[in-house]
C-alpha cells in the first residue's frame, strides 16, 4: 500500500512541472505586443467613461480633435489646424484630409458636429459636458472645416477638446446607437475582441492618419494581482505592463532584463478636510493640521519616496516651488499654538475615510497621517471602504476627513472649477468657498494671455494653501515596465498609452 501510494504522488508532480514548462514556450502571435494591467476598462463609450482604466484603452481606438504631447503642448489629431477668432468667441478647425474611420469612411465635419452635439445632449450624460457649455452653435461650412461659435471667450475649451471624452465618433454610429457596444474610431488600433476583466486583443489600424504603427497588434491580459504581473514580466510571458503600486514598481529595476518607465502625473494625493464640519470649520485648526503634516515623510513611507511634494497646481508651467508655500515644512510648535488659539489644546477625534486599494497607497497614507496628527492631539479613526461605497460617501461630503487621489488636468480651470467656484458641482465635497477663490477662478477662465493666467492661478494656489480646506501632499508617478527588447515608448503626464503607437519590438 505505502509503496504504491508514494510513486503515484511523485509521478503526478513530475507531470505537472513538465506541462507547465511546455505551456509557456508556445508563443502568442509573433509581432503582437503582449501587455498586462491590473484594472480593466469598464466600458467602450468614450463620451461616458471617465474611469482612468477605460480612457487608457479608448485612447488607442478613438481620436479627439487635438491631443497633448509629452510636454502637454496641444498638437494635431483629427484636426490638422485650428485658430481662435480675435475676440476668442469663435474657434475654427481644419480637419486632416487623410483622417479615416477604421471602417474606411473618411472623417467629415458632420461627424465632428454630431459628436459634440451628442456630448452636449443631457440624455447622453456625457462626462465632460460641463467643459463645453460655452459652445453656442457648431457650423460646418464644408466637409473639412468646423466652426464653434462660443457664448463667451473660453480659453480652456481647446485643452478640454484634447480629452478622449470629446472623441470624434461616426455620425452613422450615433444614429444607430451602437457607440457603447461597437468600438469604431479613427485611432491607431482596432478593437478585435474584448472579454471584460479577462483580456483585449487590438490590431494595428493600417490606414491610420497619424502615421505608421510598428507593431501588428496588442494582446492585453488583466492580472488583478500585481505580484502576478511582476512574475509574468520576469518569465517573459508579457512584454509590457502597467503597475500602480510603487512597492511592486520599485522591484522592476532589480531585474536586469526589465526597464521601468517612470512619468510624473497630474493626479495629486491629498488629505481633504471637511471645512463645513466642526472643528474643521475653524481656520486655525485647518492650518494647525497643515503644519503638523510632514508631507515628505508621508511620501517616503506610503510610496517609498516615489514622487514629489506638491501644491494644488500640478501641471507643467503652473507648478511652484513647494517649500515657498504656507507651512510646507513641518512646524509642530506653530501647529500646537494654532490648536491652542482655536481652543483645542488637547485636540479632538475625527474619522478619516479611504478607499480600499484605490489608490494602492491609501491605507498606508491614512496610517502615517494618523500617527503624525496624533502629535497635536488629533485622534484619527481610519475607516477603509470598498471603492464605490467610498465614492458614494465622498460625493455626499459625508466625512470628517478623506484620503484621496484626485485627477489633474493640463489647465487649472477645468481641474478646479468643480470645487473652488461658487457654481462648482462638487462644492459639497470641497466643503469651503470664499469670494477670492471664486473671482480668481473666473478671471483665470477668461484671461487669454498665458503669463497673466500664471500669475492669477499662482495667487489662487497661495490662497488655497493658506485657507487649507485640503492638505495637498504629493504627486507620484505612473509606471510602465517593459522587456529590454521593447523600445520607443514615451510616457505622458496624463498617463496615456498613446506612446504605444511608437513602440518597436526588436
Amino acid at each position, binding site marked *: 500500500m505505502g509503496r504504491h501510494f508514494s510513486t503515484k504522488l511523485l509521478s503526478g508532480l513530475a507531470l505537472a512541472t513538465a506541462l507547465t514548462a511546455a505551456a509557456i514556450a508556445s508563443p502568442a502571435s509573433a509581432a503582437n505586443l503582449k501587455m498586462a494591467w491590473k484594472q480593466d476598462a469598464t466600458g467602450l463609450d468614450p463620451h461616458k467613461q471617465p474611469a482612468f482604466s477605460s480612457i487608457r484603452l479608448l485612447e488607442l481606438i478613438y481620436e479627439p480633435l487635438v491631443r497633448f504631447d509629452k510636454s502637454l503642448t496641444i498638437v494635431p489629431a483629427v484636426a490638422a489646424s485650428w485658430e481662435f477668432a480675435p475676440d476668442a468667441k469663435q474657434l475654427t478647425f481644419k480637419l486632416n484630409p487623410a483622417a479615416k474611420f477604421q471602417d474606411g469612411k473618411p472623417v467629415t465635419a458632420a461627424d465632428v458636429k454630431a459628436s459634440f452635439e451628442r456630448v452636449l445632449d443631457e440624455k447622453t450624460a456625457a462626462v465632460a459636458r460641463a467643459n463645453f457649455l460655452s459652445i453656442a452653435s457648431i457650423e460646418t461650412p464644408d466637409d473639412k472645416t468646423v466652426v464653434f461659435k462660443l457664448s463667451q471667450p473660453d480659453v480652456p475649451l481647446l485643452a478640454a477638446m484634447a480629452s478622449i471624452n470629446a472623441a470624434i465618433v461616426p455620425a452613422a454610429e450615433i444614429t444607430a446607437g451602437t457607440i457603447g457596444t461597437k468600438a469604431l474610431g479613427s485611432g491607431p488600433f482596432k478593437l478585435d475582441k474584448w472579454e471584460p476583466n479577462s483580456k483585449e486583443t487590438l490590431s494595428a489600424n493600417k490606414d491610420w492618419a497619424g502615421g505608421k504603427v510598428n507593431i501588428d497588434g496588442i494582446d492585453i491580459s488583466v492580472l488583478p*494581482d500585481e505580484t502576478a504581473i511582476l512574475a509574468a514580466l520576469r518569465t517573459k510571458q508579457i512584454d509590457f505592463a502597467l503597475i500602480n503600486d510603487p512597492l511592486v514598481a520599485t522591484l522592476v529595476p532589480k531585474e536586469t532584463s526589465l526597464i521601468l518607465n517612470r512619468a510624473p502625473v497630474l493626479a495629486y494625493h491629498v488629505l481633504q478636510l471637511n471645512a463645513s464640519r466642526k472643528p474643521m470649520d475653524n481656520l486655525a485648526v485647518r492650518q494647525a493640521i497643515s503644519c503638523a503634516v510632514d508631507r515628505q515623510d508621508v511620501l517616503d*513611507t506610503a510610496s517609498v519616496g516615489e514622487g514629489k511634494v506638491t501644491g494644488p497646481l500640478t501641471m507643467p508651467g503652473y507648478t511652484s516651488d513647494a517649500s515657498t508655500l504656507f507651512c510646507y515644512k513641518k512646524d509642530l510648535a506653530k501647529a500646537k499654538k494654532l490648536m491652542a488659539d482655536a481652543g483645542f489644546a488637547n485636540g479632538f477625534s475625527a474619522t478619516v475615510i479611504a478607499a480600499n*486599494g484605490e489608490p494602492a497607497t491609501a*491605507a498606508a497614507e491614512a*496610517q502615517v497621517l*494618523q*500617527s503624525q496628527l496624533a502629535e497635536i492631539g488629533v485622534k484619527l479613526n481610519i*475607516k*477603509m*471602504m470598498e471603492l464605490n461605497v467610498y465614492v458614494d460617501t465622498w460625493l455626499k461630503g459625508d466625512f470628517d476627513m478623506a484620503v484621496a487621489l484626485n485627477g489633474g488636468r493640463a489647465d487649472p480651470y477645468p481641474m478646479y472649477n468643480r470645487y473652488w467656484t461658487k457654481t462648482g458641482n462638487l462644492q459639497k465635497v470641497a466643503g469651503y468657498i470664499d469670494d477670492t477663490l471664486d473671482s480668481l477662478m473666473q478671471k483665470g477662465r477668461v484671461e487669454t494671455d498665458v503669463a497673466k493666467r500664471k500669475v492669477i492661478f499662482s495667487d489662487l494656489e497661495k490662497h488655497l494653501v493658506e485657507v487649507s480646506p485640503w492638505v495637498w501632499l504629493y504627486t507620484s508617478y505612473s509606471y510602465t515596465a517593459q522587456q529590454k527588447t521593447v523600445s520607443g515608448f514615451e510616457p505622458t503626464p496624463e498617463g496615456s498609452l498613446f506612446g504605444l503607437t511608437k513602440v518597436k519590438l526588436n
Partner: protein
Amino acid sequence: MGMLRAIFSHPSGRIGGTIVLIYVVVAVLGLFDLTPHNPLQQYRIDRLHAPSIVYWMGTDLFGRDVASRLMKGVGQSFLVGVSAVALATIAGTILGLTAAWFGRLWDGLVMRIMDVLLAFPAILLALLIIAIAGPGTWTSVAAIAIVYTPIFTRVVRGPALSIKSREFVDAARTFGSSKSYILTRHLLLNLVAPLTVQVTLALAWSLLTEAGLSFLGLGTQPPASSLGLMLADSRNLMETAPWLLIFPAIAIMISILGFNLLGDALRDILDPKTRSRTA
C-alpha cells in the same frame, strides 16, 4: 478537571492542546498590549528592518515591530474567531434544537432558510454583509457568524433528532416533564460532545475566512492588525521584506493546526463509540 487530563493523554490532543494554550496566552498578552514594542508605534526611521535582536521579527512598511503586531494580530484574529463562532453556535443551537424538537412546519422553514444561506456562495455572503455594514471588526464577526450558522444548525439538528428518540427522553415524557426541561437537560446536555468538536473546527475555519476577507480588503481595519490583514499587506512586499509574509503565514498555519488537532482529540474523547479504539 477530568477533561484536561483526557485531552493531554490523547496523542494529537497533547500537541493541539499545547498549541492552543500558547496562542491563548499570546492573544491575551496582545489584547492587553503587553508586547515588546507598542504595536501601533511607527519608528519610521527603522522602516522594513530585517529581524534583529531589537525587532525579533523585523519591522513593517511604517517601522512598526512585527512581533508586537503579530501578538496583537493573534488577539484580534482570536477575538473575531471566538465571537463569530460563539454567535454561530448559539444561533445554530437554538435553531437546530427547535427544528429537531418541533419538527414539520418549523423544521421545514428553518432548514429551507439554512439551505438558502448554504446555497449562497460563502465569501460573497460575507462580502455583501460587509459592503452593506461597512468593513470593521464587528462586521467581520457578523459576516463569519452568518456564514457558519447554517453549518452549526445542521450539526445540532442531526444528533438532536437521534437523541429525541432515545429512551430517556421517552421516560421524561412519561413523567410529563416540561418541553423546556427536556430541551435543556436532556437534548442540550447531550449535544455538548458534537458541539465542542464542531466549535474547535469552526474556530480553525473562521481564521481562514478572516484571512480571506482581509486579503480582499474587507476584514479587520488598519491600523489594527489581524493575521489575515498582515498576510494581505505583505503581498506586494513579498520580495523586499519576506519576513512580513513568513511570520504571519506560520502563525496562522500553526494556530489552525492546533485547533484541528484539538478538535480531533475532542472528537475521540467525547464520542463514546471511538473511545474504546484509542485506548
